[in-house]
């Protein structure tokens, strides 16, 4: 809703503003909220990057006594398997933000599950939304009907059934995030497209006899970038949240590499004995989500102010 409002604001000026990358970045630093948010997110990205080359101990090896509280050796304590929680927490960042394990387990690609999931829903949602919003008529009807069905589809069933069908895996979680995120993105993209397509420069492109795809992706999309970006920030937050929830329900990312969700799931059995293994990943999820929210909030406010 607010993102859409931002879009309207943005396009009121009727000018073809294509903010450069540097401008976008400078906007961030103009907002204190966005800066704080970005610092929080950057903290976890850096932690994740460090964990790629170094963690205090091997995150998967049971070298210590089980369920220790924080001490000089294990700063955050140990879990029920006698593994160092700090190392695990650090490595947990990787699967969420930094790398995706390909099926087969041999290789991984850069970009975490949450990131790819959101990119996926962005890709799918933008294609559907732009087509619906720009072409209108029957295309719009059909796409919106399918999207309605997808939105109404009980998400948890979708995950469970997809996971039952394909087994646990990073790709499955990405797929789940993509499918559940796409309708929202599509709705946003559609409303933006509906708005932008009334502009003169679209008329101009049409008289130049540009193809529909060119108009959608070269004319409309760049002007819808801001709101979509803000929306995606929030979506990464939801996705991390969801990975945590799926992990808690025992259907998230597969072991052995820890992710925050599966850390919570494993530690849940021991919650009455040792709360820390649940608290740390939960705190990690919370701070990262808060960071993303603040970042998105600040960005949105600045975008709106900037456009005014």
């Amino acid at each position: 809703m607010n993102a859409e409002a931002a879009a309207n604001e943005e396009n009121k000026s009727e000018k073809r503003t294509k903010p450069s990358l540097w401008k976008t970045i400078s906007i961030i630093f103009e907002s204190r909220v966005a800066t704080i948010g970005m610092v929080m997110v950057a903290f976890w990205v850096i932690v994740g990057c460090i964990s790629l080359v170094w963690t205090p101990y091997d995150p998967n090896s049971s070298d210590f006594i089980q369920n220790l509280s924080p001490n000089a050796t294990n700063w955050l304590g140990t879990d029920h398997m006698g593994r160092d929680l700090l190392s695990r927490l650090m490595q947990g960042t990787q699967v969420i933000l930094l790398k995706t394990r390909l099926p087969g387990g041999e290789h991984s690609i850069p970009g975490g599950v949450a990131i790819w999931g959101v990119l996926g829903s962005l890709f799918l949602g933008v294609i559907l939304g732009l087509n619906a919003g720009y072409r209108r008529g029957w295309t719009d009807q059909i796409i919106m009907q399918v999207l309605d069905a997808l939105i109404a589809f009980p998400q948890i069933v979708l995950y469970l059934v997809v996971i039952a069908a394909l087994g646990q895996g990073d790709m499955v979680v990405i797929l789940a995030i993509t499918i559940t995120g796409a309708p929202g993105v599509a709705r946003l993209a559609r409303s933006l497209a509906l708005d932008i397509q009334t502009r003169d420069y679209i008329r101009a492109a049409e008289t130049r006899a540009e193809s529909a795809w060119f108009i959608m992706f070269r004319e409309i999309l760049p002007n819808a970038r801001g709101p979509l970006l803000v929306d995606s920030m929030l979506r990464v937050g939801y996705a991390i949240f969801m990975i945590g929830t799926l992990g808690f329900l025992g259907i998230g990312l597969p072991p052995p590499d820890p992710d925050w969700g599966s850390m919570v799931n494993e530690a849940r059995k021991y919650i009455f004995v040792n709360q820390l293994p649940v608290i740390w990943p939960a705190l990690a999820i919370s701070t990262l989500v808060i960071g993303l929210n603040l970042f998105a909030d600040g960005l949105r406010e600045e975008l709106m102010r900037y456009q005014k």
Partner: protein
Amino acid sequence: MVRFLVRSVVSTIITILLVSIGLFVLIEVGSGDISVKILGVFSTPEQRASYRAQLGLNAPTWQRYLDWLVGNDWRAKSRMTYPLITLKNPKTKEVEWWADVDGQATRWKMDKGELKRLVRKEDGFSKVMPAESDWIKGEGTEEFFWGVDNRNNAVKFVKGSGEEVWVLTKAGLRKQGDGPREYIPLRKGLIRGDAGLSWQYNRPVSMILKPRVRNTLVLAGVAFVVVMPLALFFGILAGINEGKLLDRIISITSLGATSTPEFVTGIFLILIFGIWLKVLPAVTMFTSSNAIFENPMMLALPVMTLTAVELGYVARMTRASMVEVMDSAYIRTAIVKGMPYWRVVFRHAIRNALMAPITIIMLHVNWLIGGVVVVEVIFGYPGLGKFIFDSAIFGDFSAIEAAAMVTVLIAIITRLIGDLAYTLLNPRVRYA
């Protein structure tokens, strides 16, 4: 208005069809062998095959979907000697299928190679009568009969056919091939109000689902009643104090609450209030079906968990909307013109500011249902969310379909209400 409604209804039906087909395909691909899940891993392959046949699982995929949608009793009727009827079981109130043999409700079974009639008595049980005369001559030496068995299947009993395996029994020689051959699990179909049979519980889905839906509506309803006034209050408070300390405190707290997953909040609430302090029931124990009304304190922790997550979300929305409205030209003009501040806030700002959060809340219901799943799982609350979770893990086709239909309906109805509310509140949209 009429056109709008008609279009909504048509679109709803299409949505439901799409969702049901989508689910059907997913479950078809996704679930393993149901018979193993029910009979256990120590069942023999023959037993599993027989059980699958009894569930009608050896029918083609499209047929099973159609059976679920429009029923299959008409398919069975054409083969049966006697007309089919449905009766309610006096003890469990489940609908049962019988055949009407001269006014007597009857089922059949085969016992030691002989066909027996089970004639229904007043109490719902039946007495056994011989039924050898029911056999119909088939090809060759084969005799067959289409009847109903006591698992609500239309069954083709066969005698004297197939495998020539003779077994010496105490009663004499008997052909092994005799017995039930083909099954049609009788159902009326969803469009005739029969949601089918849950495989996981072997009961009609509707009977299990009804109390679950009620429980979830109670939980979500109480949470809604608690969350909404609080969230709107805090949101408005923060909105009119934008940038001040109060706004900061409310905003940061609500952001923190929304960003903490339900499972963390729930677990720690249990730990603190249920186990350490022992002041509230730790989990919801349904010692009777009306336990939540007899002991409403059970709802305290689940509602608190849902509140923690939802409160922050709605409050943030309200705040943003309030800030926007307070910033708008007409409010500023009103204040500049000298209208009393509080009157501007109450008469103009709030009304306009609530529009956005209300529509958002309606669109948010599906997300809420996801949250309810987690809360129900944590607290052992027998509601719709847990039902969906369990059914999906089991691969219980009819149960997932029925439960999904309910959530789809909830989602669509709330969206319709949202659309209507928005249309009525906002004249610009109404004529668009």
